[in-house]
């Protein structure tokens, strides 16, 4: 099935209650499949007037104790940042599936990895979010379910960062009921309108995102940063293939990491010492894991590959501050990257090194 269909099934399996959405390619079929499935499973769907409305209706539903989600892309992701910033400030859980398209502006409806920075750090805040970058349909299914658990457990906005290729491509996937695999689903609790009569059985719940003084905001944010940092080791995920004699480490995320992994396997078979590192959570970034690889191997060269002009690269550089490992790049904003292209680049770098 297509990746979009997989996401709809995953949301169903994760016991999502309600999707609020607005049409934008390439995520539309998530809404189509969900809208078709929802009435048969007692779930809800509303097509709103824009992405801001989709995001804010999501927050309304989550506040009264329902698991809500949305899906968007490109300019829709830009508009969605407003409600996401409110979710971030007020610790309102929610899951957003982002199927990246070309940017900036309307650009293409096809594919890119140009929404990495926006999805991880968008909004007028500190980027206190969790972002899973998937590389296959199986991952789309499993990480969508996981995203609901992360969102409702930690109450930070949680994202599945896919792209147009993953959205539209068909591939085999094994769907399952989470409980049958021993996965526990985190239940949703009402933040507003919990049980009891306000002012009689309990205090009324009053929530705000506006503060009167700087220190009030600072204290609130530092408490949230502390929560976030405490969560980091529990949610951070990555994949790595490297040994002490590895010469080049390909760093990539999402669907590009799939090509990178293929390149690495091919070149290893050819006897070349090539490794591979893939952040699965691009926020929080597995910086310690990446540093550990490089500390064990000070002469290792990095090759950062992405379908954007340096968004992953800037994250990698920030994490590696102070280390002297050289970094090479293969940056192709808005277009796909094949395993063959990566192989050509790696071979060229190795030849240069020897020459």
């Amino acid at each position, binding site marked *: 099935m297509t990746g979009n269909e997989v996401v709809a099934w995953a949301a169903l399996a994760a016991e999502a209650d309600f999707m609020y959405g607005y049409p934008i390619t390439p995520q539309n079929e998530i809404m189509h499949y969900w809208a078709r499935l929802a009435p048969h499973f007692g779930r809800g769907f509303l097509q709103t*007037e824009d992405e801001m409305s989709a995001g*804010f209706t999501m927050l309304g*539903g989550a*506040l009264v104790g329902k698991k809500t989600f949305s899906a968007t892309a490109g300019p829709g992701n830009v508009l969605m940042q407003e409600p996401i910033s409110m979710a971030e400030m007020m610790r309102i859980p929610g899951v957003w599936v982002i199927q990246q398209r070309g940017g900036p502006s309307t650009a293409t409806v096809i594919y890119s990895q140009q929404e990495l920075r926006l999805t991880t750090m968008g909004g007028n805040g500190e980027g206190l979010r969790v972002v899973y970058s998937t590389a296959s349909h199986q991952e789309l299914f499993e990480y969508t379910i996981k995203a609901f658990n992360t969102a409702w457990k930690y109450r930070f906005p949680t994202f599945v960062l896919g792209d147009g290729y993953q959205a539209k491509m068909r591939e085999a996937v094994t769907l399952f009921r989470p409980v049958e695999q021993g996965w526990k689903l985190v239940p949703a609790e009402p933040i*507003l309108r919990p049980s009891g009569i306000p002012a009689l059985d309990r205090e009324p719940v009053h929530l705000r995102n506006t503060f009167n003084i700087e220190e009030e905001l600072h204290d609130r944010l530092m408490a949230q940063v502390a929560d976030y940092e405490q969560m980091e080791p529990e949610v951070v995920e990555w994949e790595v293939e490297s040994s002490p004699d590895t010469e080049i480490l390909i760093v990539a995320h999402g669907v590009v990491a799939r090509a990178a992994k293929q390149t690495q396997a091919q070149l290893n078979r050819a006897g070349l010492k090539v490794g591979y590192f893939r952040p699965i959570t691009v926020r929080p970034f597995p910086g310690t894991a990446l540093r550990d690889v490089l500390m064990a191997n000070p002469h290792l060269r990095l090759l950062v590959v992405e379908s954007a002009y340096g968004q992953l690269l800037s994250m990698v550089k920030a994490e590696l501050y102070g280390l002297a490992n050289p970094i090479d790049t293969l940056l192709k904003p808005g277009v796909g990257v094949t395993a063959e292209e990566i192989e050509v680049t790696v071979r060229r770098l190795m030849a240069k090194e020897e020459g």
Partner: protein
Amino acid sequence: MEEKTAVVQEAMDRPQMPLSWRTETKPHRFCPGCGHGIALKALGEVVDELGILDRVLYGCDIGCSLLSWDFFNFDSIQTHHGRTIPVIVGAKRARPETIGIAYMGDGGGYAIGAQHLVNAALRGEKITAILANNTLYAMTGGQMAPTTLPGQKTGTSPYGREVAKTGAPIQGPELVAAVAPAGSYVARATVGEYQQLKQYLKQALRNQIAGGGFSFVEVLSTCPTNWRTNAKQTWGFLQGEMAKYFKVGEYLVPETTATGEE
């Protein structure tokens, strides 16, 4: 039951205010002469009379309306500018037994959040939206709003609003009534006519309780701080210029309530 008696006793001992008002946050934070306090008093009394305190979810906007975030004894959420309607719509859709109230100003409802007001009305969302019209943006220091009257001076229309350049004041309830489906309730009230204001708010909430369509009440309100008016001039502007331009009354009434249920 004992606590309930204590609550009732406390209510009898204190200055007259609705039971659904939160005494800990009184006196409220609005400027002297501001109309919000009157509108919110009417809303509190209506919630008391309808006995829906435990079902209310109250949302307020950015702008002066946000100062009501902890005003009541029911659960509340302060949202972003213009986004109160979608937050309340989302909650209502997710838990339909909720009585959703979205409270906002004219900038939030008619400018930055106009698409939400129009589309919630079009879809007949079963919520109650209350919009205070004081003819300008008050919290940001008195800028021109969609409701600013022709010739009225504000921070961004310092020589008076020129209709030819910036348009005529929006007729909000008229607009909502034109797009809302049958079963919706639409009215314009004023803080100058308290009993009528209460009556309209009650109809708007009754319509939601009955599962009718969208309910919308614009409330003509006052802002002496930004109007730079004394008490007499404030009352005069509300009852004079504003009332002349914005006609008070019911614009759309569901058939069930029109047959004289009250």
